[in-house]
């Protein structure tokens, strides 16, 4: 966009973002490598919190708070409920990884190499000065209810359908017809 400053002198915002990104990536690595199921869910909380911080640095405040509310507040709790209800072993369990772990590591490394190469090559000069207020609740709310009303309503119907589907799937006294 504009004349981008060099990478050698990162601003304070970039340093904070990089630290938060490092925390997110490290916690995500622990999520996929830890030997305890409950610890995986708790490291997932750290990942989502660091990502919420990244959104805050990127001036997307409303998305950050929604991330904290829904991901940390609802989804992780739901995953913990799932862990408890399937009577998962609480302590250290050795068989959380399947046998195709080397293949998975190979595929993941290849994906990371390709994506990072392409992204660095493509957006090396992209620069956007951060301006506060771009992602406030007022802006996002007016945008949702002015330009995105139809997807919003369709999404509410989808959420209702998912709710009913989850209830029907998890209740045991509802039988199929015939």
């Amino acid at each position, binding site marked *: *966009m504009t004349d981008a400053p060099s990478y050698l002198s990162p601003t304070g915002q*970039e340093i904070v973002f990089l630290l938060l*990104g490092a925390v*997110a990536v490290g916690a*995500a690595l622990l*999520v*996929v490598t830890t030997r305890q*199921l409950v610890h*995986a869910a708790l490291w*997932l909380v750290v*990942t989502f919190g660091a*990502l919420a911080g*990244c959104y805050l*640095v*990127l*001036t*997307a405040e*409303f*998305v950050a708070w929604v991330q904290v509310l*829904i*991901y940390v507040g*609802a989804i992780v709790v*739901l*995953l913990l*409920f*799932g862990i408890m*209800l*399937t009577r*998962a072993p609480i302590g250290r369990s050795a*068989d*959380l*990884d*399947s046998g*195709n*772990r080397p293949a*998975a590591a190979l595929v*993941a*490394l290849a994906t990371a190499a390709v994506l*990072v190469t392409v992204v*660095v090559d493509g*957006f090396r000069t*992209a*620069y*956007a000065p*951060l301006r506060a207020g*771009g*992602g406030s609740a007022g*802006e*996002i709310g007016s*945008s*949702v209810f002015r*330009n*995105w009303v139809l997807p*919003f309503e369709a*999404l509410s119907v989808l959420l209702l359908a*998912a709710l009913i589907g*989850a*209830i029907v*799937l*998890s209740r045991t006294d509802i039988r199929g017809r015939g």
Partner: protein
Amino acid sequence: MHIVYPAVVSALLFSIGVYGVLARRNTILVLMSVELMLNAVNLNLVAFDVWLRDRLHAGQVLTLFVIVIAAAEVGLGLAIILALYRNRRTVDLDRLRLLAETPAPAGSALSPESALTAGPASATGSSPVSAPVRTGPPPPTGSPPAGPPPPAGPLPPTGSTPSTGPVSPPPAGSPFPPSPGPGEGP
């Protein structure tokens, strides 16, 4: 803010999610890895919304939509996992091999066209996990099975008679290879 930073972070998160989906065995851990991948996409959306200064705020609104869809997905996924756990007593992905193609059992002398019709039933009968952990109580010997009813035979199958054609006996007879005698109750 250089756009490369959030893009690289999100690429790394996505590859970590790919690794988790492929390498983990527990179904809930696979769901967590899917959440990681969705979060990588969200970070990309927010970063490019900031970069492009979209007047409609498409990136951030789409991020909200993705978060809502992820919530619905986790709810449904956990309901499916709980139903699976009720039926199978396990959530290990490696042990859910009911759809795997197993070689035909050695004792059954099935012609190729009758093996075509009896394929799912014989795969169900010879799967290693299905025998102790079938859904519900095991059917009593002699009664027709609850899943695939015999298409034409009104009588319960009286032993395995391979000469009666491909229609009636093989789907009903093959799930009970060790049934001792026809018609006796337990």
